[in-house]
Each structure stands twice: as structure tokens, then as C-alpha cells.
């Protein structure tokens, strides 16, 4: 291609002609000392805590310490280019990241700069990294399930939308695998996922992104990456950046989101590093005093927002978010209980808000001119799956206990189980979901409700049986059942199960329909059975997916199908 000199010079001329010289007024300070990603800056007397500042070479920093004559700044980038005496200017802004649809499918650093070579991220909107989590009025309880597609989790440790479920375990026990499977399972479910990699090996992250892409999950996923070679300030802000990107979809679009923080122990270490360099006093395990707040303020941002309804004029567009259009009940908050709005603005947002809005709408004389409107930016959720790596199964270390106490439950992974071939290596005994059955669909709750306890008693019996004593028939049966359930809960990576598949699989196991199969054949039988039903009786699955329960009718035909199939399966093998 021939270089078009004229065109280039005309572009430059135009640019210069249009340039309006502006007086640049700024508040500046001077770098006193710099090292290990921290700069002490003299001056900047009016700087705010958390404010974004700019160094003379264009690098950004965040003000963390305000001292009498200087401020302590963490450098968000390469600190080797910053020298003593350099100028630092205030920007008057807090840290923020670009958000929006353009972020989806991208791999970015914690400041929203692209890392995937797909060009600049053109986003008109930004959101601050740190926001205050919504209060109790703006929330609703966690009731809607967020299916991970993993049998062992969806049946016994269900995760709900807006819940914070910790994934904890030693290294190499499959923590990331669970999170990735959960992301892959959100395909087609209108859930935006954010995977935040903190202090991970770059090669691991490349592999994760590749896997997500392979399974079509990058179409609805944002990856925020602060690798182990990234400066510690970037590792420290990465989870907040990921949360801010998800919050756009939750607050502005009313969507469900899933954020994975992989992992928060590395983030705590990064924060410890910069706190010590800022000369903040060390506490237990040398972590600073506010390390609990570091994680609690992050995880508190996971939320299920309330649904908001209003009675609006009939011609209001479906995507309207204008709260002022809602007709206000003439009696306001003093109205009858059946019609009473939940706020002076006429909105209905508590549990039975929709019913009350509809009741009032129906009672209106001119009800034809109005309709009940659900605000599309309400009801969003952010589910958080933080990951914590333990050392030698030590859950009583500082950071693990902190995060366990913040989250609504934990999925505990054990190396012993992992190497015994039980994968996912979930220790059912000490894994819990404090939201529990509320976040499960009815059908699953009914079938798998007692599974956790049954498996726990099986583990106890199993230990007892190893003593070699004679066992009575009932005990032996319980052992057989337990063995088959453990087998049934094994699941390879990247193969999420749909709700109906899980339901059938759990049903077959808990009702003892697999008891007469050799343990080794359970998984083979299960997958063949599911394939068989998919091919021959898809209506069974459809009914379960729609209703969320197994009707008596479906149940009886399912038992028949399973028993028939078992006969042919046993004949073949």
C-alpha cells in the first residue's frame, strides 16, 4: 500500500486546527520515594482516600494512605519507570472501569485494558470500582437456583442467585474446574459471567479462556486477569473491577450474573504486601487489620435485587425504567393490605408485590388505561463464587475462616477424595449451603433432600465396616446404596447436567433402582439411560424442566422406562 502523505498531513492539520488550547490546572505533588509498587508523595494536600492520580509518565496510581505531609500511593502499573522527584497530579476521580456489552467476550486487566489483542475496548460507560453494597430494602431473599450443572452440588449444596458460595480446598483439588463448569452451564440461561483470575499462572488462564471459548461460554463471559506477574495493586483491585463489570448488568439491565474470584487468598496476599509496604501495622499472619473488610465489602456486593412493579399507563414501553410514571395509590401507605404499595413512590417491591399491584390494578375503575409493569432494571442478581486455597487442608487459617464466615456456605474439596477418583472431590460432610433448599427447585428438593445426611451416615458405616465385622442385611443394603450414590455423583469435567438429567439420575440412585447393578457399571448405565430417554422419551424431560417437579404420572412412567432399560442394559453387558 502506498503511503498517502497528503492525506496524513491533512489529518494532522485538521487535528491541530480543531485543537483548542486549554489551560491545564491541576494539583500536583512530588515523588519522595518509590519502590515495590508504592510511592510516597509530598504535597497533594487535598487528595482523597482512594483517589486516582496520574504520574508524569502517564502511569496511574491510587491514594491509599493520607499522612500529615505526604500521601502513600499504590502504583497501578510499572513502577520501575517512576523516579524520585517525578510529578504526580490529582485527577479528582475515583478508580473506575469501562463497563457494558462491549466487555462481554473480552479478556481485560483490572483497569479494563484489553489483553486479548482484539483491539481497544470502546465503552462510553464506566462504573466505580468500589460501591457501597445495597441495603436490606433493595434486596430480596435468595430463592432462585443458579444451577452449576454439577450433580453433587446442585443436589446437596444448591447455590442460589445472589448467594456467595465459597469453593475451598488444597491446590490441585479441582476448585477452578467447578467454577468453570458452573460458567459453562450458564449457556443459554441469560446469565452474564465474570471470571476474575488473581495471581494465577498466565498459562492456566490461557487454558481456561481456551476452554470457555471451546464450549461457547465466552459469548457471555468477561475474563479479568491479574496474573502472578502483575503488580500487587492490580491483583488487589481485580475482584472489585470484576464486580463492577457484573454490576452494570445487574443494576442497569436487571440481569443475573455470576462472578468467580479465583482466588481470594492470592488477593489477600497482594493486599498484605502493599499494606506492609505502606507501613500499616501487621496483625495475625502479618495481614493488615482490615483484611476482613477487604473480603466482606467485596462479597457483600453479591445480591439478589428486589423486583419492582408499578401500575403504569397502558402505552408505557416495556423497557421503560421511569419510576415517575407509576400511578400512586391515593391512600398511599395507608391503603388496604391487599392493595398497599411498598413505597411512597407507588412501587410494589416486596414478596407479594406483584399480586398486590395486580389486585389494585383490577380494582381500578379505569383499569383498561393501565397495566402492571415490571421494571426491567430491577430484580438483577450477582452470585459470587469466591475461591480460597488452603494449605494442607487447614481451614482454620486466618483468611479461610474469614471468608467462610462471610459467605453463605462452602464447597469443600479434599485431595484424598480427588486421588481416590471421586471427582468433583466434594466432601459432602462439611460442605454446606446456608441458603439450602430455598434455592432448589421443588423436584430436586424432594428427591435429594435427605441425600447429604444419608451419605454422611454411609461414610460412618463404611469406616465401621472396614473393621471386618459381620453386617446385618439392612446395614449391608445401606452400604451398597451408599457406594452406588458416591459412584453416581462422580462427573467428568466440562459436562454439565441439565436439571432434568440430574433429577432422573438422583431419582434412580436414591430410589434404589441402581442397587442391583455392579458399582463399576453405575456411571455407564446412567449415561446410557439418559441418552435413551433423550432419544425415546424426550417428553419426560420436558415435563420435568417445565414444572420443576416430577409429577406422579411422570414418576410412574420413568420407573417403567428405567426398569425396561435396565433389562436390556444388563443383557448387553
Amino acid at each position, binding site marked *: 500500500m502506498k503511503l498517502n502523505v497528503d492525506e496524513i498531513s491533512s*489529518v494532522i492539520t485538521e487535528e491541530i486546527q480543531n485543537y483548542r488550547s486549554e489551560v491545564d490546572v491541576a494539583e500536583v*505533588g512530588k515523588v519522595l520515594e518509590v519502590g515495590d509498587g508504592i510511592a510516597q508523595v509530598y504535597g497533594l494536600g487535598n487528595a482523597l482516600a482512594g483517589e486516582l492520580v496520574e504520574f508524569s509518565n502517564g502511569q496511574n496510581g491510587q491514594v491509599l494512605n493520607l499522612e500529615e505531609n505526604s500521601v502513600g500511593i499504590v502504583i497501578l502499573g510499572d513502577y520501575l519507570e517512576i523516579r524520585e522527584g517525578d510529578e504526580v497530579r490529582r485527577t479528582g476521580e475515583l478508580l473506575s472501569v469501562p463497563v457494558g456489552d462491549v466487555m462481554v467476550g473480552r479478556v481485560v486487566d483490572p483497569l479494563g485494558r484489553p489483553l486479548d489483542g482484539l483491539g481497544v475496548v470502546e465503552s462510553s460507560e464506566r462504573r466505580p470500582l468500589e460501591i457501597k453494597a445495597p441495603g436490606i430494602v433493595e434486596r430480596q431473599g435468595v430463592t432462585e437456583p443458579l444451577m452449576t450443572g454439577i450433580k453433587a452440588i446442585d443436589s446437596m449444596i444448591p447455590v442460589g442467585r445472589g448467594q456467595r458460595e465459597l469453593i475451598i480446598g488444597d491446590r490441585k483439588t479441582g476448585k477452578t474446574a467447578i467454577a468453570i463448569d458452573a460458567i459453562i452451564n450458564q449457556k443459554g440461561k441469560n446469565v452474564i459471567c465474570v471470571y476474575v483470575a488473581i495471581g494465577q499462572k498466565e498459562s492456566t488462564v490461557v487454558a481456561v479462556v481456551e476452554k470457555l471459548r471451546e464450549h461457547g461460554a465466552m459469548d457471555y463471559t468477561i475474563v479479568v486477569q491479574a496474573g502472578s506477574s502483575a503488580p500487587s495493586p492490580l491483583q488487589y483491585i481485580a475482584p472489585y473491577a470484576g464486580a463492577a463489570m457484573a454490576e452494570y448488568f445487574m443494576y442497569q439491565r436487571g440481569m443475573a450474573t455470576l462472578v468467580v474470584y479465583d482466588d481470594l487468598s492470592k488477593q489477600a496476599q497482594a493486599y498484605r504486601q502493599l499494606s506492609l509496604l505502606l507501613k500499616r501495622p501487621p496483625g495475625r499472619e502479618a495481614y493488615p487489620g482490615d483484611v476482613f473488610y477487604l473480603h466482606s465489602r467485596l462479597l457483600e456486593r453479591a445480591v439478589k435485587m428486589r423486583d419492582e412493579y408499578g401500575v403504569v399507563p397502558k402505552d408505557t414501553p416495556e423497557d421503560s425504567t421511569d419510576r415517575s410514571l407509576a400511578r400512586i395509590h391515593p391512600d398511599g401507605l395507608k391503603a388496604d393490605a391487599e392493595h398497599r404499595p411498598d413505597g411512597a413512590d407507588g412501587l410494589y417491591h416486596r414478596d407479594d408485590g406483584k399480586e398486590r399491584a395486580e389486585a389494585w390494578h383490577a380494582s381500578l375503575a379505569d383499569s383498561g388505561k393501565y397495566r402492571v409493569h415490571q421494571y426491567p432494571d430491577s430484580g438483577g442478581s450477582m452470585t459470587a463464587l469466591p475461591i480460597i486455597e488452603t494449605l494442607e487442608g487447614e481451614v482454620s487459617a486466618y483468611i479461610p475462616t474469614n471468608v467462610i464466615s462471610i459467605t453463605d456456605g462452602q464447597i469443600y474439596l479434599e485431595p484424598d477424595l480427588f486421588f481416590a477418583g471421586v471427582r468433583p472431590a466434594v466432601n459432602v460432610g462439611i460442605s454446606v449451603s446456608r441458603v439450602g433448599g430455598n434455592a432448589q427447585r421443588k423436584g430436586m428438593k424432594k428427591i435429594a433432600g435427605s441425600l447429604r445426611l444419608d451419605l454422611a451416615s454411609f461414610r460412618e458405616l463404611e469406616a465401621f465396616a472396614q473393621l471386618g465385622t459381620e453386617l446385618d442385611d439392612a446395614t449391608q443394603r445401606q452400604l451398597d446404596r451408599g457406594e452406588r450414590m458416591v459412584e453416581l455423583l462422580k462427573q467428568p469435567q466440562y459436562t454439565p447436567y441439565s436439571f432434568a438429567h440430574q433429577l432422573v439420575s438422583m431419582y434412580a440412585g436414591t430410589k434404589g433402582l441402581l442397587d442391583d447393578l455392579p458399582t463399576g457399571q453405575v456411571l455407564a448405565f446412567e449415561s446410557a439411560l439418559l441418552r435413551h430417554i433423550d432419544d425415546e422419551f424426550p417428553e419426560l424431560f420436558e415435563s420435568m424442566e417445565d414444572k420443576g417437579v416430577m409429577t406422579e404420572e411422570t414418576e410412574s412412567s420413568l420407573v417403567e422406562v428405567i426398569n425396561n432399560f435396565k433389562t436390556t442394559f444388563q443383557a448387553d453387558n
Partner: protein
Amino acid sequence: MANRDEKSLAAARVYGLSLLELAERSGAAQALGEELLDLGQLLDRDEKLRAFFGSPLVDADTRRGMIEKTFRGRASDLLVDGLQVLNRHGRISLLENVIEAYRTGYQARQGHVDVQVRSAVPLSDGQRRELAAAVNAIDGRTADLIETVDPSMLGGLVVRIGDRKIDTSVAKDLRTVRAQLADRAAREILADRVA
């Protein structure tokens, strides 16, 4: 560079302002200020004097005698007494900071402020007056101009009052234009790729 750590600065401020108060009482604030300024320049020039004041190897008694011998009679009593107090309290190494604290304290009481001015060419007297008037208009204080000539700015002025910096230099304009051109180029390349 003078010591900048929090505690020494605070200590130096106490000594500097006490000296200033004493000097004001005897009406010698300006004279003492000039003396201190000279002493500061001497410190800058003379490495041995700096070492003598700064080094912990010289013990306080020796230093006391030396100060008495060299300064008494050649400087005002207030200054010599001040030096002795600093010496007795082991704060003599903060002398530079004390001088600075005195200077800024005196300046503040006079309603003056340091204004650093960088320009591509030396300022004319008219420009100085204009600039001082402008500073007075925005800040309300009288400007003590500290001028530096920096040809790399190409044109315009960079004025710094305390932490505030006002940049009208041509070099800054050129930097902005360059950033805008680069931004535009990046946008156009991306647009091409998408199309």
C-alpha cells in the same frame, strides 16, 4: 535534599516557628530571616559545615564550643542562641528544615507565597508585574516569584503555587495533540479491522 520524614518535619516546624515568634517580639523577624537565609546558602555551599552540623560523630559539647567560637559576635544573639538550643536538644541536624519552616512561616505572616514560574524565555519586568497581579487575584497573596527558564517548553508558562499547577505551555499542547492523534489512529485502525 532536606529531611522530609513526618516526625522531623513536625519537630523542625516547632523550632522554626518559635524562633520566628521570638524574632517578631524583638522586631527582628526580617533581619533574622535574612541571616538564616545566608546560613542556609552557606550550608548549601560548604560541605564541611553541613557535616559538622549533621554528623552524629561530633558530640554536643564540642559542637557547643564551636558554635560559640564561630558564630558569637558574627551573628545575632538570637540566631546563636537558637543554634545552641537546637544543639542541646540534638536537633541541629534538622537545621535546613528549621530554616525552611522559618522562611515559610515568615512568608505566611507577611501574606506572601512562593510562586514557581517556568518559562521558555526570561520574563520581562512587565510580565512579572502582570503575573504577580494575576496570582494576587486568584490567591489573594503576594507572589514571591521563583523563576526558571526552560527552553524545552517552547512557549507559554507553567506556574506553580503550592500544590496547584497551572500549565499553559506549548509543550503541553503538543503532547495533547499527539495523544489525540494516536487515539484517532487507534480508533480508525480498529474500525478498518471491524469493517
